[in-house]
């Protein structure tokens, strides 16, 4: 067993709180699971041993991390190094919205039920998070309530920190909300950050996970959704990649006629790695799901996408679509993409495609015919390929904030 894992288990055994019965289950699973290595399918391209090798040393100087999103009037829940920062967080919430700290979950029966309910046990670091996460929040939206103001869960990570946070959210019937999970901080730190969302019948969630940690950061987490009947999920993931970035997304269509959309952008440079595993479970008939995953990979960076669509027996009349397009900017950049389709119903439409995107010569000619040089046109088109998904974001403040950041990152990739 890895010494990091041994320490983790020892540490976990000391935690005693309202989640202890659930934590014990995960602890038992962890003890029976091998530390992932390259032979572990789910971790084939992502070297977890980096965690073993890293020494986490906290420094006292605070870094300045630019997290402000102009024109976004959000309910802020701020965590620094995995610890709630009450002073920086919003204090009042609109009617129908209840937000509590994870530690206070004992007063909310639904929270205990939700814990580990949506996130599958197969995620190794999800189990770790189960046992160690004592910080985070529980968010409850009442039935028939539309929360107009976006809820932003902002996590920044300083040099040397190790942290584990958990978000539990319940959206009542016919309610709607927008949640932004924003993770930033580039220096060497380790965090596991998992979120579980229960979206009741006819409820609607607009979701953003902005996984913007670069460079030395080690960031592992997931967003897991369960959709009731006619529920609607519009999820957007933006990933920058670092020495180790891993996100697992599970979207479980638990009710009939639910709809989910997952748009993913990653932009990787240097030796960065970003590993996304998505799984869409259609358990009931008449659902639709769409995934658009696009990445641009430069230099020696490595993008991994494992996209699973599982259509259960009797889940008829499903429309599931998965598009993965990748743009490689250097010969040393790597893309490892693997669709996994498991279809047990016969009356379904399931389309998937993974392509290495090429520059559209017609578009290139059109731009050049206006006097734009081939190299500039190339940048415009490559960026356009990513920006198309930014254009689709419903929240304009986020889209406007992201565009120049993505553009700058893309320009930096060009230079090399």
């Amino acid at each position: 067993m890895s010494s990091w894992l041994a320490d983790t288990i020892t540490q976990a055994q000391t935690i005693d709180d309202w989640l202890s019965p659930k934590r014990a289950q995960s602890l038992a699973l962890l003890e029976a699971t091998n530390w992932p290595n390259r032979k572990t399918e789910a971790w084939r391209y992502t070297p977890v041993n980096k965690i073993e090798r890293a020494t986490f040393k906290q420094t006292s100087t605070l870094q300045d991390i630019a997290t402000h999103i102009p024109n976004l009037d959000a309910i802020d829940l701020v965590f620094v190094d995995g610890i709630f920062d009450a002073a920086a967080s919003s204090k009042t919430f609109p009617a129908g919205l209840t937000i509590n700290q994870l530690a206070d979950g004992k007063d909310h029966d639904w929270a205990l039920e939700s814990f580990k309910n949506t996130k599958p046990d197969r995620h190794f670091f999800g189990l770790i998070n189960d046992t160690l996460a004592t910080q985070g929040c529980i968010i409850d939206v009442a039935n028939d309530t539309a929360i107009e103001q976006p809820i932003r869960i902002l996590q920044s990570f300083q040099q040397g920190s190790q942290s584990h946070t958990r978000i539990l959210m319940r959206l009542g019937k016919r309610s709607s909300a927008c949640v932004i999970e924003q993770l930033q901080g580039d220096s060497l730190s380790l965090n596991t950050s998992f979120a579980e969302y229960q979206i009741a019948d006819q409820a609607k969630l607009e979701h953003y996970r902005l996984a913007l940690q670069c460079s030395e950061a080690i960031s592992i987490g997931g967003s897991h959704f369960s959709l009731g009947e006619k529920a609607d999920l519009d999820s957007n993931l933006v990933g920058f990649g670092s020495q180790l970035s891993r996100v697992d997304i599970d979207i479980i269509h638990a009710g009939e006629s639910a709809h989910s959309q997952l748009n993913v952008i990653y932009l990787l440079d240097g030796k960065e790695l970003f590993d996304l595993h998505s799984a869409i479970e259609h358990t009931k008939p008449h659902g639709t799901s769409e995934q658009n995953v696009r990445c641009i990979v430069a230099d020696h960076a490595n993008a991994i996408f494992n996209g699973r669509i599982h259509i259960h027996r009797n889940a008829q009349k499903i429309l599931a679509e998965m598009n993965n397009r990748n743009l490689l900017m250097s010969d040393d950049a790597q893309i490892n993409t693997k669709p996994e389709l498991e279809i047990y119903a016969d009356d379904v439409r399931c389309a998937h495609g993974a392509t290495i995107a090429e520059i559209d010569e017609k578009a290139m000619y059109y731009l050049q015919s206006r006097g734009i040089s081939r190299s500039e046109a190339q940048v415009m088109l490559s960026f356009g390929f990513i920006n198309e998904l930014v254009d689709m974001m419903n929240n304009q403040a986020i889209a406007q904030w992201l565009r120049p950041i993505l553009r700058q990152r893309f320009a930096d990739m060009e230079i090399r």
Partner: protein
Amino acid sequence: MLEIKNLQASVADKQIINNLDLKINPGEVHAIMGPNGAGKSTLSYALTGRDGYEISQGSATLDGEDLLEMEVEERATAGLFLAFQYPVEIPGVSNMEFLKASVDAQRAARSLEKYSSSEFLKVAKAACKQVNLPLSFLKRGVNEGFSGGEKKRNEIMQMILLQPKLAILDESDSGLDIDALKVVADGINSQRDGKRSFLVITHYQRLLDYIKPDFVHVLADGKIVKSGGPELALELEAHGYSWLESYDRNAEDESE
């Protein structure tokens, strides 16, 4: 201005343009008419340098400069503009960004200073209004989801912004409603200053009612088979292209 001599062009190993000659002087408006598949668009692609359009023979110069030696973008900055018959949709690239990059390139080639963003915004808004497109079209992806007529107006807007020496308008009038036809024609006329030249490809006389051409040519089987004044367009409208076939036969008889 534009001088094409004995031009032969092929696409996919198929020769489409055969020994074509055409001379356009500064300030002139020439119209080209001709049946579907005659090679009108092929001529515009060959002149603008589209990949895959091979020139096996002949020459084409713009103000004495050899077009055929230039890259696509160099032809554009030399003053050649093509309003596409089928404008290309580029999702993810905003019309505004595209227009700014195009105008920047043109201004750089003319040793003019770049517009600042706010200056350009003014210029772009004015052009947008001139072709009667809502300003929201500046924000949308290039031609993305534009209707046929909106695409054509967007092409004319680009011409207005780029101020080319020679504009080739490939069926800029097809698919337009009556009002839009007037907008497009006005857009073209607004650019006529006695120096700029136009090559207007069209199937219909009605555009030529608005834009009085100096010359009308008939392109068939890759060459110009007849040239005349504006009355030729009226004649074609009256007789159709079957009249050309007899013209073709006569020509063949003569050459034998």
